[in-house]
């Protein structure tokens, strides 16, 4: 384990660096001195100028929550991808391969667009805070229940993958239908959710996301032993006398919680879940999840913060969507995997 200490330290520092950079840089440029002053010295000076208040507002209600959200999303999606790839022995498995994003999307679509069709009052505060997230979580967990109840039929991984693709197709068909009949405003609300964003989480939502990600990470850590046992295939683990059904359910619950909560609050964010575990394996060169799991969390958090940082790069006051950046970062990795085909 000792030989990895320098890598862990390096990525911990990189993550910290990206976190700080993500707070410093934004569409509005704030001098570094002002940021330090407002974060660490606030409350010490008697008078607060209007400028300080403006800076503080940007920092505490926007940039810091946004950076923390990005960090949580990066950790959650990467750990989910790692466990999926091991469980299915498939290098291209990711949080979305089982249709988690599709079913979350369906949940949101039914809620946002179906709700107005049914005449629900979307302006209700409870709906505004938890409506979309709750619908996405419900969609993800319903899918998980479906998979677990069918798991004795979906014995091999290929049928499970095909099942995921089919769920995705059915979901997008229903979403299309809803889009056709819904009002322009709810359609816009849905489309904005699908674009993905780390911004705009209220403190309560952020705490909720953090809570769920922490529980998901804790469950993932408890899965380490089972994940290692799955490295030589399901058959090997079964022959060893391991309760495969129980292991599968534990991994599915952890991954659904991680991917479901992140998707619920940030929208479907692609490519991080699939790319980060590969980057981590490439750097650490160890299949043991005791090494790989914490490493993936570190690399995932760093990558997502870096991606979020890049959304501001044009520095023109415009922000590009996070999914564009994650695709540009993630797709080359996926191509390399396919071309090298050595997992």
């Amino acid at each position, binding site marked *: 384990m000792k030989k990895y200490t320098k890598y862990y330290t390096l990525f911990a520092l990189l993550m910290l660096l990206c976190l700080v950079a993500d707070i410093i840089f934004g569409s509005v440029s704030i001098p570094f001195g002002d940021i330090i002053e407002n974060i660490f010295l606030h409350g010490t000076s008697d008078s607060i100028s209007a400028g300080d208040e403006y800076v503080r507002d940007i920092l505490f209600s926007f940039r810091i929550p946004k950076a923390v959200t990005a960090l949580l999303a990066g950790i959650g999606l990467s750990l989910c991808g790692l466990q999926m790839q091991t469980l299915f022995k498939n290098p291209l498995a990711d949080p979305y391969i089982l249709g988690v994003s599709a079913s979350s999307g369906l949940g949101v679509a039914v809620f946002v667009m179906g709700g107005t069709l049914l005449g629900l009052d979307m302006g209700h505060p409870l709906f505004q805070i938890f409506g979309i997230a709750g619908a996405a979580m419900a969609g993800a967990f319903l899918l998980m229940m479906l998979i677990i109840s069918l798991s004795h039929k979906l014995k091999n991984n290929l049928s499970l993958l095909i099942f995921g693709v089919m769920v995705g197709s059915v979901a997008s068909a229903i979403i299309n239908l809803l889009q056709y009949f819904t009002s322009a405003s709810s359609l816009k609300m849905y489309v904005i959710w699908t674009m993905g964003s780390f911004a705009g989480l209220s403190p309560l939502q952020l705490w909720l996301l953090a809570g769920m990600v922490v529980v998901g990470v804790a469950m993932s850590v408890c899965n380490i032993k089972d994940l290692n046992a799955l490295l030589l295939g399901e058959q090997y*683990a079964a022959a060893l006398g*391991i309760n495969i059904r129980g292991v599968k359910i534990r991994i599915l619950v952890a991954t659904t919680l991680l991917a479901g909560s992140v998707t619920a609050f940030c929208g479907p964010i692609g490519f991080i879940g699939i790319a980060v575990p590969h980057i981590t394996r490439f750097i650490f060169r160890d299949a*043991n999840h005791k090494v790989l799991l914490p490493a993936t969390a570190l690399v995932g958090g760093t990558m997502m913060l870096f991606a979020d940082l890049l959304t501001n790069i044009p520095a023109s006051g415009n922000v590009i969507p996070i999914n564009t950046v994650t695709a540009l970062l993630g797709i080359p990795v996926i191509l390399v995997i396919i071309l090298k085909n*050595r997992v």
Partner: protein
Amino acid sequence: MENMLLEIKNLSLGFHIGKSEKVIFDGIGAQAGRGEVIALIGSNGRGKSTLLRTLVGLQNIFRGTILYEGRDINGFSHKELSEMIAFVSSHTERANHLSVKDMLGINCYYKTNWLGNITEADSAKISKALEMVGLEGFEDRNSFDLSDGEYQRATIAAAIVQDSQIIILDEPTAFLDIANRFMITKLLQRIAHEWGKLVIFSTHDLQLAIDMCDKIWLMAADGFYNDTPCSLMESGAFEKLFDNSKMVFNKLTRTFEVKD
């Protein structure tokens, strides 16, 4: 028999297609004890793998009874079964960057803590097992880069580490050259005779089975035979191995010949 470990009573192999049943092999009955090496012989499609998978508990019993130390297999918990039997497949999947030590550590599943940390004692056991199979000092090697023969030996070492009373292997010598085949069979013999374990493996290599095994389970066209290699040779049971009557067993060379 005093040290009897395994008893198979009137076992049938088969599967269900919808509501109808298809029986592959009928009337398997055998007993086996500690310290024995048993070869399972049968032509392709006779159900060798199915029998082994059923013995290991990977497949439900179609009909009949399997007893370990007098207890029905269905009454075993996952952990108890893993302490009773280790299974080695002929083609275990590989994982890149999985060190040989971590690979063998997987078989300590029921002995390690919640994180799967390998204890000093298990670590020593892993080194010992590797030494036994001729892979001394391979602990930190990437299991993905081992040759087929080395990898097969590593999977046998993993079964040794599991420390079960019985080791069952499905064609452990398939895909291997003659030197590796001999080495592995010799190793299985040592595991049984020196350590008092029961070793059961399937093979197509009849000559090797006759030379090195204490008993042969023969899945022939007309039924199941369970006897020593010599008695089976005397009784002419090997003649019934193939449906094809043109295959004749030559007792002198211990090989099959094609009759013109």
